[in-house]
């Protein structure tokens, strides 16, 4: 029983990471109807930036905040410079650009930092909090940080005029222009936010999986799955999906199938869910008018 509780809780910690990346994917999906395959590599790259800052003598939290800011800027710049020219191109052309970004970021990371595994510090104490035996302090800390971030995002989109404008621009770009919203910039802001979310997720997961150029590969896949399980047009659903996938992955990996085939079986399950419920748990069912 203890082992099960332990696995469920550990699953929640990684689930928070998946939830964050899933949310980043959903944000860009809502505005463009495309899945940004480079999201994971962007997060990885930002985590390396944080590592550089920390090694340059910054304290953890200043480095953390600075990285979030840099990630935001990087996201905005990428949208304006790289994505904008293909805004109106066929879907697959944009997908190729995403894949191009993915390999570029990955390759640059290998080039600058080499492929060797690096340890990434955790800001949380090494001894368990409150003497509990189920979760490490980092796992609890990561969940708290993730929740704070999600709450801030919710408040931003729900209560600020800029958040409202971003939602409007994603939903109905033509009408958004007619009320004077600069839709192109809203998209860029969306990229910036998504990159910042990814950076937080990367910094939270790096102490667990270690820092290396391919660290986000599996995470992106799970996040993709989480977004779809939750319903790709529902941010809340994506977050729920993230936690669900995290727990499932951990519990199944530990008790049912072992770690060797963990990835494959978890994915088969997810696909099973989708076959039964094709638009995810919280997604809208699309009715097509003929």
């Amino acid at each position, binding site marked *: 029983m203890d082992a099960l509780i332990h696995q469920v809780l550990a699953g929640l910690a990684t689930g928070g990471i998946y939830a964050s990346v899933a949310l980043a994917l959903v944000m860009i999906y809502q505005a463009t109807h495309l899945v940004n395959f480079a999201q994971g590599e962007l997060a990885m790259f930002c985590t390396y930036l944080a590592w550089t800052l920390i090694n340059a003598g910054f304290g953890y939290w200043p480095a953390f905040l600075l990285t979030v800011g840099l990630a935001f800027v990087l996201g905005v710049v990428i949208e304006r410079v790289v994505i904008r020219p293909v805004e109106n191109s066929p879907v697959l052309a944009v*997908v190729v650009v995403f894949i*191009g970004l993915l390999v570029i970021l990955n390759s640059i990371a290998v080039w600058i930092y080499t492929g060797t595994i690096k340890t990434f510090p955790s800001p949380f104490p090494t001894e368990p909090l409150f003497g509990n035996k189920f979760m490490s302090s980092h796992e609890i800390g990561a969940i708290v940080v993730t929740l704070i971030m999600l709450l801030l995002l919710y408040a931003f989109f729900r209560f600020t005029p800029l958040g409202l404008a971003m939602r409007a621009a994603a939903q109905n770009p033509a009408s958004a222009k007619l009320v004077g919203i600069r839709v192109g910039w809203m998209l860029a802001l969306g990229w910036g936010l998504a990159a910042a979310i990814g950076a937080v997720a990367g910094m939270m997961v790096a102490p667990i999986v270690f820092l290396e150029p391919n660290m986000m590969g599996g995470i992106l896949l799970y996040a*993709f799955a989480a977004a779809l399980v939750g319903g790709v047009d529902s941010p809340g659903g994506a977050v729920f999906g993230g936690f669900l996938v995290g727990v499932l992955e951990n519990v199944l990996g530990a008790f049912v199938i072992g770690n060797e085939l963990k990835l494959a079986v978890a994915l088969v399950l997810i696909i099973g869910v989708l076959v039964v419920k094709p638009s995810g748990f919280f997604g809208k069912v699309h009715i097509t008018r003929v």
Partner: protein
Amino acid sequence: MNQRTLTVVAVLLLLACALPFLVSNYRTFQFTLVLVYAIALLGLNILTGYNGQISLGHGAFYAIGAYTAAILMDRFGVPYWATLPVAGAVCLAVGFLFGLPALRLEGLYLALATFALGVSMPQLLKYHHFEKWTGGVQGIVITKPDPPFGLPLNPDQWLYYFTLAVMVLMFVLAWNLLRGRVGRAMVAIRDHHIAAEAMGINTAMVKSLTFGVSAFYTGVAGALGAIAIQFVAPDSFNIFLSIVFLVGIAIGGLASIPGAIYGALFIQFVPNIADEISKAAPWAVFGIFMIGFVYVMPLGVNGAIRMLLARLGRKAQNNRSTAGVTRPTINSPEEV
């Protein structure tokens, strides 16, 4: 196919036949891989380009084809040429079966399902219960076939011709399939699946079959690839292979048969060029090439060539028309 296209194809075929005598053995080997990739890309293009189903996991079918060939040759002593139909048939079956549940999934959801297939393939190949056949992480080494009938060719050259013959056969088959009834049904489903169904097309059947045929092509390519490289191992069939295939069809040109060849040239040679430009970060250069290609030719190489030909055709027509008479063209400023 009109007279002119036929001539072009004939000339290109002649050139392709002459190629092994003009370049080194290593280059011949590289071109063999181009032919292999062209078959795989054609398979993916049948699915994605003509039927509108995106697959992020075609590397898995390529892997199944490759392993089928390798296991047959290594464990059962089957001759290399006989492995191709078996590899194709296995993939046809797997593809068809995978296509059945995947039918319920559209767009992104299908992309995820295939993505998952692509990601889990190396894990499955490494799985210790299959090790008896797959050789686990070590993979399987196979021997290169010698030219038959005492032909005065070296093995590389022979393999090139063998692959070329298979490719031509596969392309002719695909061309026949796509311009016929089934091909029209595929395109109809891509463009408007509800209307297609209303016209009496059994969309479920056609979509699953398309998946099967697409996997068949990619599987045959996988088998040929394994024979050419003489080695299969789980990690050469990772998700990146699937992604590169997708890049190949996007850059070659969606829903076009020659596009498969352009795409194959791209995925075979551009990484090499990138490697020569920067040893430190070759993939970054490859990525820049990818993005650059899309900026310049959003419809792929095939689309760009078509537009160029159309423009040249119009220009020729304009020049022929007598002085003083100007024909409006689509690009005249008045119409924009």
